[in-house]
């Protein structure tokens, strides 16, 4: 049977079949794409950051820089040790603090603190930072990533949850730095 326009009935049915499959594919694509984008979609809902205690203030003596670790606020049971994140805490003068990410601002390798020369050095490409986190030498384009912090009930808290990267330094909802309320 030939329909007006030269189509046969089978041609039309086949085209409807293709269209039908296309519609179903589009409908199925929605949950699949949404599932794939779930790590990104999370960001819209206020990000991954939350306030995490690093420990009592007396763990961080005045004038010293110490390694602290925290359990990432977003973690799954299968994460194992990978959700234990280190950071460097500098007690500037007993009043003010600086909390640096462990990740070099160049390519994310773990920087090490050298107390004697008051420098952070990176083992990967030789990035070096001063004790206040500012860039001293090497390939990094900027200073160390610095977490926002606050002090509550004698504990040091930082706003953390996401690995800082050069394109996404510390993300935070807070615009200005919170000064310690000691």
């Amino acid at each position, binding site marked *: 049977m030939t329909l007006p326009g030269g189509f046969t009935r089978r041609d039309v049915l086949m085209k409807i079949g293709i269209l039908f499959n296309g519609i179903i594919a589009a409908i199925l694509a929605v949950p699949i794409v949404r599932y794939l984008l779930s790590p990104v979609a999370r960001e819209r809902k206020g990000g*991954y950051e939350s306030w995490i205690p690093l420990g009592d203030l007396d763990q961080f003596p005045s004038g010293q820089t110490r390694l602290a670790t925290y359990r990432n606020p977003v973690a799954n049971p299968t994460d194992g040790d*990978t959700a*234990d994140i280190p950071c460097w805490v500098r007690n500037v003068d007993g009043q003010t603090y600086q909390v640096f990410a462990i990740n070099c601002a160049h390519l994310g390798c773990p920087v090490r603190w050298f107390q004697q*020369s008051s420098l952070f050095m990176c*083992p*990967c490409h*030789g990035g070096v930072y001063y004790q206040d986190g500012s860039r001293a030498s090497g390939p990094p384009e900027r200073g160390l990533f610095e977490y926002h912090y606050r002090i509550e009930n004698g504990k040091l808290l930082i706003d953390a949850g996401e690995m800082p990267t050069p*394109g996404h330094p510390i993300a935070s909802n807070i615009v200005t730095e919170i000064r310690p309320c000691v």
Partner: protein
Amino acid sequence: MRLIDSIGEWLDARLQLGTSIRETMEHPVPRETASWFYVFGSAAFIVFILQIVTGIMLALIYVPSAGEAWSSLQILNHNVSLGWYIRALHGWGSNFMVAIVLIHMVQVFLFGAYKYPRELTWIVGVFLLIVTLGMAFTGQVLRFDQDAYWGLGIGASIASRVPVLGPWIVNLMLGGPIIAGATLSRFFALHVFVIPGLLIAFVAVHLLMVLKLGINEWPMPGRVVRKATYIKEYHALTKTDGVPFVPGAIWKDMFFAAFILLSIAVCAAYFGPFGPSGPPDPTIIQTSPRPDFFFLWLYAVLSFLPPSMETPALLIGPVVAILGLLLLPFLFGEGEKSWRRRPIAVLTILLVAVALGTFTHLAQHTPWSPVMDAWSGEPIPHEFLDNRSALERQGALVFQVKQCHNCHSLGDQGGKRGPALDAVAVRLTQDQLIRQVIQGGGNMPAYGKNLSPAQTTALVAFLETLHPAGQSPARNASRALALEPGAASQPSSHQ
């Protein structure tokens, strides 16, 4: 025998593949292509089969969970009989596969095989190179150790530099905000399902085109490719001077593939498996992450790029390189195939090989990284301390304690980040030494806030002793004049 024949006939009556298989095997190839230069493609394919088999073996034990992957590798290495050997085969197979794919690529490039009508074969080959490197990188991640963990950090840091979309790409790549369980799971899916699927599909298309279009003939200087005549000339060549692929050419492929498999087996037995290095615990920061062999050159490039160049180079460089490879057959689809008439092609290969080799060599020694324990682990050789005054030895102590040794070597010991200081006193005067120490510069941190005046004095006194015997230290000739009593009051006759 008769039974085998009758089974064969029974199968062929149903499958009806016998004729086309026979035609494929016996298709004529130009006699000169039955050459030892034409064995790399088939060898890469055989190594890929080995990777599939050993990969499936490993998947029987391996646990793709961030909390347990590292332990499951230990179990493979130590608790499963010959688990270490399967890991070694897979690891060495990976290195051989990348190497053979690269050699294959160089060979077909130098033989002009990308020219008409084999442009698409080359393009699919470029995709095969990319997915092979993708397998190598994701495989390195599955060896979920310290290097894998921080290697992912490097990957994320690079990806984050993409304008606007960077942070999203990082989250997609890591499967969340940090390198953790979801990251390993998605790299497992990539390494085991997605990329091998692409690889198999690309290999099928690549091989199909080799069969349909015929293997590239041996390039002869003066035998120029022209689109109008090439296919006719090629068919004439295979007709007049062709041999059946089986057995005329395939025996060399077989010998070489067997030799490569044997080499992998021997390397695996002798050198053993790769790692794993320390557990993927980010709180263990005493680590110097290194990528696997085939990414070392990139690791070196990343330390030499000036900061302002880095993001553009990282984002634009790969795009330009891949586009260049993809456009090659369209820009140079005709003309001479022989490398004897293509000096620029030969020079390009040499340049790329020397550059990659040099960067790889540098990355094995990482002269740009401070030697983290030189200050405590590598003493100053005694010849730099003999017959020195108390102040100078105090300076040597400052040199050691303030970690100068991490970046500067003395007597070939210590870091290579900064210049060797064995003869620094010949290069810099006392004033220049003081200035350099206090203000830094030229990629050296400023130590002004870090050294007391007494420490600086002692350190510079020590540095001033660092000159070869019989060669006096550099001195500022005008200094004595300027400090001479009454020098200031003299009329400035020099002006």
